[in-house]
């Protein structure tokens, strides 16, 4: 609980209609997309301007109150989980697109703007905003900046950091600073580059200048069916070796295909490994390259190849892919979504090892992954009603992350570390590495009040494990797909 005096200071900062202190309303903010972690905040503020954010942060700095900023709460690693009794700064009301500059290819937005709305705004001029996390219809740019969100197309187009030119940030001491610039290479340290992906631990974003990209002339999407994910994986390697850079390369295994089919009837070929290849660019180039891709698929024993013949068909292909996670509920009562990265070449052995590990404990793992960049999303399926199975599933899910690190990869490709993977970060990085990151943290936030107790490992406590997947309320309501 926050002392009444602090509550009044917050009220003065954002007004009565910008402050939530009632218990039932506070419950809305007690978790993000990682719903098995829940902590009740002391207050939620809903500022409308950077000055109001600044006033709130100054109150927090004065009284050393921990705070966390929050967008739509779709994050899957608990990054927006409040500190007990702390302040949640919801940026949902700061949702204006402030400037659209087509000639110089940027837009300026407030952090509460929804990702997909940026593209909607510039689409009439033939542009789009490239990072496309699957929750893009609801997730906000501020959250994307915090998590350095990617999406299925980041193989070619890069991540949020690639597209962030400048940020306005309220530092944890309440100062407002401009990081980066709409022009390139502003003199000084690249603080915008460091801030993106810092998971809310370095301050609060109040304005973002984003790069927009010209929409390609042609987009072609191919489905290719193989006997196994390994054969699909070899095809991916061969496509890369042929000097191509597709905009997306996705693989689903049999379990994932079954689930997606049951959920959205994407009309996928039933097979051991389904490869989705998307090429975009000038029409003649895409045609030439797609001919090569088809040949590579045939050389690797593709049973069937199917090129989407219309935009509707293409959308259906993607709908199945994006629904794959949520669709697991069709084939398993419970499941854990994991997010790890491996070098692409480690794919066959890591998949075999995951299979072996799952078999050894009597569980099934469905695999959906961004094969182009080695980002795995193993889905550990289990039944909570069977005694001991949840513990086995949690343990397996955690060991898969270690497997990724052991194979030269990472514990997270897009979900972030947040609350969920703090301990795993300690598995991936040594103490000197983490100490060095802390130097940055301490320069920005010496009082440790901006989203404290996140990202960095701490003493292991009971229950410090990745949790079973519980559908986010937005997902249950059918307005967002999450992976």
């Amino acid at each position: 609980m926050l002392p009444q005096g602090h509550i009044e200071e917050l009220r003065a900062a954002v007004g009565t209609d910008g402050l939530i202190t009632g218990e039932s309303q506070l419950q809305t903010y007690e978790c993000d997309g990682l719903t098995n972690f829940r902590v009740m905040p002391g207050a939620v503020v809903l500022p409308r301007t950077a000055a109001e954010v600044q006033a709130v942060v100054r109150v927090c700095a004065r009284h050393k109150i921990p705070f966390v900023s929050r967008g739509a709460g779709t994050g899957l690693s608990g990054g927006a989980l409040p500190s007990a009794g702390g302040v949640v700064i919801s940026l949902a009301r700061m949702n204006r697109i402030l400037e659209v500059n087509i000639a110089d290819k940027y837009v300026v937005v407030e952090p509460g703007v929804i990702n997909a709305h940026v593209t909607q705004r510039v689409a009439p001029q033939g542009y789009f905003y490239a990072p496309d996390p699957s929750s893009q219809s609801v997730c906000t740019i501020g959250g994307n900046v915090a998590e350095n969100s990617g999406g299925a197309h980041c193989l070619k187009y890069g991540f949020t950091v690639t597209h962030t030119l400048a940020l306005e940030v309220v530092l944890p001491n309440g100062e407002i600073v401009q990081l980066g610039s709409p022009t390139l290479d502003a003199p000084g340290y690249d603080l915008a580059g460091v801030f993106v992906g810092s998971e809310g631990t370095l301050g609060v974003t109040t304005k973002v200048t984003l790069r927009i990209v010209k929409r390609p002339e042609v987009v072609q999407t191919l489905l290719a069916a193989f006997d196994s994910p390994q054969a699909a994986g070899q095809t991916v390697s061969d496509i890369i070796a042929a000097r191509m850079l597709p905009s997306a390369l996705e693989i689903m295994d049999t379990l994932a295909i079954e689930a997606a089919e049951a959920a959205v009837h994407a009309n996928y070929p039933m097979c051991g490994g389904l490869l989705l290849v998307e090429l975009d660019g000038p029409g003649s180039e895409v045609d030439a390259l797609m001919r090569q891709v088809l040949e590579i698929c045939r050389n690797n024993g593709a049973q069937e190849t199917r090129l989407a013949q219309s935009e509707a068909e293409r959308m259906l292909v993607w709908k199945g892919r994006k629904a794959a996670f949520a669709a697991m509920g069709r084939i398993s009562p419970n499941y854990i979504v994991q997010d790890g990265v491996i070098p692409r070449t480690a794919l066959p052995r890591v998949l075999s090892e995951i299979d072996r590990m799952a078999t050894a404990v009597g569980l099934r793992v469905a695999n959906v992954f961004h094969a182009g960049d080695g980002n795995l999303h193993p889905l550990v399926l289990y039944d909570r009603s069977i005694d001991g199975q949840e513990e086995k599933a949690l343990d397996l899910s955690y060991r898969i992350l270690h497997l990724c690190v052991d194979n030269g990869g990472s514990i997270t490709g897009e979900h972030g570390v947040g609350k969920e993977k703090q301990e795993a970060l300690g598995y991936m990085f040594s103490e000197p590495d983490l100490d060095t990151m802390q130097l940055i943290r301490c320069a920005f936030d010496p009082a440790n009040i901006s989203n404290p107790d996140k990202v960095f490992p701490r003493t292991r406590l009971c229950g410090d494990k990745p949790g079973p997947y519980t559908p986010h309320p937005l997902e249950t309501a059918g307005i967002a797909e999450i992976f």
Partner: protein
Amino acid sequence: MTTAAAITREECRTRLATIAGAERVVSTGETVTVAASDVEQIAEILRFANSNGIAVTPCGSGTKQSWGNAVEAGILLDLSRMNKLREHAWQDMTCTVEAGCTWTVMQAELAHHGQMVALDPLWPERATVGGIVAANDGGCLRLKYGSLRDLIIGMTVVLADGTIAKTGGKVVKNVAGYDLHKLMTGSFGTLGVISEVNFRLHPLESNTQTWTAVAPEPFQFEHALRGLLDSQLTPSSVQLRLSETECELDIKISAPAECMDEHSAKLSKICGVMELSPSDETVWQARQELHDTANAVVLKISTLPNDLCLLCSELQDWSAKKGMEIAVVAQANGLVTAALKTAPDAAIALIHHLRERLRNAGGSVVALQVPSPLRSTLDVWGCESNALPLMKEIKRRFDPNRILNPGRFVGNI
């Protein structure tokens, strides 16, 4: 020599010889040069320097040592012996390379598998990976492939106190922990010594074509340039070259051979009445030629892409009015290199004028190469960021004794 009073240059030399071997230590004037052979030696050298308050300048081949404020280093930490491509995971399209490896040597190795780091820095035959990263150098390829920081996926850095830290990793997608390598890129050796860099790679551009159009003044390219950047063509490089008398627009496209005619036709349509002629790859050396101009002040100007033609015209006018020789290479992304041959006062006046002009758009002017007399009187960086106190705090945390290139960077960091 900026060593603490407690240690003499000879003692410094002796200690460094113990660390790296006597044959790796050379004294020149007040500076002792030591060539490290591995990351542990770097760490030991820095621990020694840190505990004795000796200023250290990391150095590859020294091509950009004149950039930024002058530093009187007690130790020149030579990394040129750390020159190996440590790993090329070609199927994963990543590589790990030591900081002292020259760009050309690295690229030649990567080319065996048809790959490259998609960046075209200055003096690639001599410039080393560490120096290029520390100075955030890059050329026209940035239009298509993005900035250097986006090509770096991991790094090994040695901090002032000898801590060896790794950041990022060897996979292209990774959001675990802070991206320390982004902070290090372009930090001019003021936060740590880069010992190794992991890059993401791209396929070599195997089939390219360059075209050039000529006009008396930059404004005549405005329509073509806008049309090109607003088109669905994806050129590798686009630049404007400007001298006192004429202006040229260069465009390079990389595409499968069977598509080149179609691209050429589209390009002609976009350029309208401008006549495009095929030209050779040497036009892309233009930026380097400006840097090689003897006794010139070389500026890195950053503006918005849509401002390029206007800015170039203004520079042309300024040149005519003030009798100043100005040569310009302007990349389509808004980064402009300008070489001025003029009296110091006139150069300073132009720099101040440009900084004032670009302020509202968030642009900047850095005087990269400055003849010595001017270097001490001019604020070469022109950093007006309100985040400068934060940058200074980061420097203080990373290098509390100010031994790493002290004073070289913005705000005398």
